């Protein structure tokens, strides 16, 4: 066989996305939860680039590029929020950040 079926790329992307969801659901450290979101964004990027290959168009690459830009902005703001949370509550455990609950 000369070449990889496109479905393999898509299934790899689905597996990485599911791992991101698992990290998001099961982890308690706020930084690890944030990294799981980055993992999900990466999985989506792989899907964009794979479909760009199938359609022989460059548009998918641009969407992946914009996702990267948004991820960079999100990382900057998110890490600032994490810093603020740690400064105010002295914890990184998301189960203890519940001041809006009461």
């Amino acid at each position, binding site marked *: 066989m000369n070449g990889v079926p496109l479905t393999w790329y898509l299934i790899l992307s689905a597996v990485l996305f599911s791992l991101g969801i698992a990290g998001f659901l099961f982890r308690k450290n706020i930084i690890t939860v944030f990294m799981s979101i980055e993992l999900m964004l990466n999985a989506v990027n792989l899907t964009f680039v794979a479909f760009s290959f199938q359609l022989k168009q460059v*548009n998918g690459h641009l969407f992946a590029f914009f996702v*990267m*830009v948004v991820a960079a902005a999100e990382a900057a703001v998110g890490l600032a929020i994490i810093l603020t949370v740690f400064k105010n509550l002295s914890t990184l455990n998301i189960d203890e950040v519940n001041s809006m609950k009461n």
Partner: protein
Amino acid sequence: MDVILFLIFAIIAVVCGINVVVQTHPISSALSLIGVMGSLAVLYLLLGAEFIAMAQIIVYAGAIMVLFIFVIMLLNAGAEAKRGRSLMAQLLGMPLLVAFLALVSYFIQRLYPSTTLVQFGAFKGGTAQNVGRALFTQYLLPFEVTSVLILIAILGAIVLARKELE
């Protein structure tokens, strides 16, 4: 050759992805995430996306992960306690996650029967020239909006991380 390269880097990506989820120390998770991003960059190259592969290395593995590791070291984050999230999340989350993955894989198999073979060099439209041309003609407005978004993000980060809110 394509199959071998794909399998090697797909396995690296999945193993590092599992490592991101199961490691208790944030630094180990961050280093595993860099492994995922590096192997994804190689997969982008196999798909003919040269520019995106380089941007992946520079922006993700370079800038964003350095920011993550910087914050982890700044906060001196240690390993988290072993106890997981609530029992409900564990009991319900895992089967639902497996069901989600199975369903998505099933739909992918049904919708895209393996007719398209990904061969290295079959698509040459992902060079910096092509991406730049599309970015500054067809996608000019989203590109400009992106600059505003980055500006807002910088301002937001500065305001949030300021010393004290009086």
